[in-house]
């Protein structure tokens, strides 16, 4: 059987209104920007809305609204 990592859920998989706690990042370079914007491991985020075509998405992070592309959101892994 080929080695296959179990796909972790990421912020990109959230539904509108769903909440989750950030666990880690799958992309180091992207994580620098996300950390600066306050997306820290252990922080709760809430998917607040999606753009009409489902991408980009808007998150609520520590009291403000942050928008990002779906591909960027996919690098934020969430606690199960």
């Amino acid at each position: 059987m080929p080695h296959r990592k179990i796909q972790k859920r990421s912020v990109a998989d959230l539904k509108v209104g769903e909440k989750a706690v950030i666990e880690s990042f799958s992309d180091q370079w992207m994580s620098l920007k996300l950390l600066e914007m306050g997306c820290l491991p252990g922080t709760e985020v809430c998917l607040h809305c999606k753009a009409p075509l489902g991408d980009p998405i808007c998150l609520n992070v520590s009291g403000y609204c942050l928008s990002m592309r779906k591909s960027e959101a996919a690098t934020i892994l969430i606690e199960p």
Partner: protein
Amino acid sequence: MGNPNSGKSSLFNQLTGLRQKVGNFPGVTVDKKSGTAFLNETTEISIIDLPGVYSIYPKSVDEQVVTDILANPQHPDYPDVAVVVVDASNLNRNLLLFSQIQDLGVPVIMALNMLDIARQQHLEINAVRLSMQLGVPVVKINARIGEGLELLKVAIEQQIGQPTVSETLFFDPGQQTVLAGHDMKGLISDVRQQYQLTNNYLALQYLIQHDGFSFLGRPQRVKLDGLIEKYQFDEIDFQAKETIGRYQRIGEVVKTVVTDKRPLNQSTWSQRIDRILLHPVWGYAIFATVLLLIFQAIFAWAQPFVDGIDAGVAWLNGTLHEQLPDSPLTDLLTDGIIAGVGGVVVFIPQIAFLFLLVSLLEESGYMSRVMVLMDRIMRQFGLNGRSVVPLISGVACAVPAIMATRSIGSWRERLITILVTPLMSCSARLPIYTILIALVVPEKTVLGFLNLQGVVMMGLYLLGLVAALVAAYVFKLIIKAKERSLFVMELPTYKWPRWNHVGITVWDSVTSFVWQAGRVIVAISIVLWVLASYGPGDSLEQAENRVRSEYANQSAEQVENRVASEKLEASYAGRFGKILEPVIKPLGYDWKIGIALISSFAAREVFVGTIATIYSIGSADEGNDSTIREKLAAEINPETGGPMYTPAVAFSLLVFYVFAMMCMSTIATVYRETKGWKWPMIQLAYMSILAYGSAFLVYQLMK
């Protein structure tokens, strides 16, 4: 300095009022907004408004400036005191930047802003405790209404007199041995020794960011690379740890100074508005309406002002003609200078309206929603959601539009935006469109309510937009990405626009347009007038004498007309036009249009003025009583005997002007923004080929 949307610019405007000017930071093209204010009766200080950033690790060109200044105490703009504006309603994230600036060793003052918004969100902040925890002066302000300015000035005065700098670093990279797993202490002290730095955090910046530091020479940068190698220092990893470390401490500080009585799960009204404005159907419908409104404003609302200015210039010209003695100098003043200045001033209403609306959208917070709305679509074309602002601004003028691309972090997306923005029909093309459409498109109603001329006009704008998107798509295939594209962006809460802000933005953009474009246009008008009025040797007199003897039997008026047009043909400008004629013949143009093409190469808005000059020089009846349109309609093609401006010629010209990059200011701006001639030349070439090819097709098909 401060985070974006923290009220930094409001504070700057409150402190300086209209005593501000826009310049450039040395070596870079980022606009530097500076101004002066009085601390007390005797002390005047100069204040610089730095671009808003989230951290001192820059993500785009305009953010780079902040780090460049703060990491280099020798920089001419290095501050005596750094006033950091902090948004109290988002304290954690704002304190990240604040703690970094503080750690760089600059004397700082925290201007704690937006306490009213924090209070609305049921957050109470104890500023005194915050000041004690951080060891820096904290002043409560309300930048929107100008509260707390006096206290802030007192604090600035004290910090200048006796700077108090926190003794310990908020985050000390030298103490992070455990965190990083390397000998950070050794590495940091090595850097400090080699560069005579007194500050651990500054030493860390040398390590992480030295590639972007223009003040370091090449050997110095290589040496830093050597140190990184020696200690096996992982920059990205360490930077991530720094951010987490800072947020941990910030969390502890915030816990002791903020009382959070926020009820959980209550959506703010900003979020409720978002649900409508980002709605799959309503979102686009509202955006389309806003765009229509902008167009309506530029074309319809600005028209009375444009007409007024036009009439005013014409009146001034006529009066001067009557009052002043008939001499070449008078002609130069009226036909050359005043006509040229009038050509610039006439754009002011449209530009003012556009910037009024764009800055209203930005102030209110809607513009970032538009970026979110459009990002997915723009990405298909190699652009970014942030490209929307330049493309919309391009409808007024490409110069500020191209400068607005600086906020796009990815070089590739920014470059593509720069390359295609001039295809958006700017307001300088409008007079050309107006006059040619009026000439060949009948004024009638189609489909019951649409004005045919308006439909054609709209079509030209759409043609420009489509061409921009197609060109972007082609460039996307050609240009390879240097770095990854990033769209992580804060959506500010909706706010009422501040009218003084809007006013200042409009004023700035109008004045910079008048100065930048104005000089070029006036200069060209004068040169053109001279070239069209004089010829080599006595060729003009020869032409006049020849006509007089050949057509001696015709009426005096006809002879005068002949003389004038033969003289124009013999002038320098006429000769240039003649040389160009073989090249533009396939497009349906004659040498007179050739002159207009050459002269409008530097600025397309000159076209209408040029044909006005050419046809008024080229006909004897002073030309003051007939409009340009009538003159064009009366122009006869000597070969066919029919009117010169057939629909084929007019449409060929229209298409040519939609695509052609005829604007010196734009080329100069692209040169500055891309730091070289390569891209402006590529842009000029592709747009010229596109213009020539399409004009050729249009003429040959319609002929």
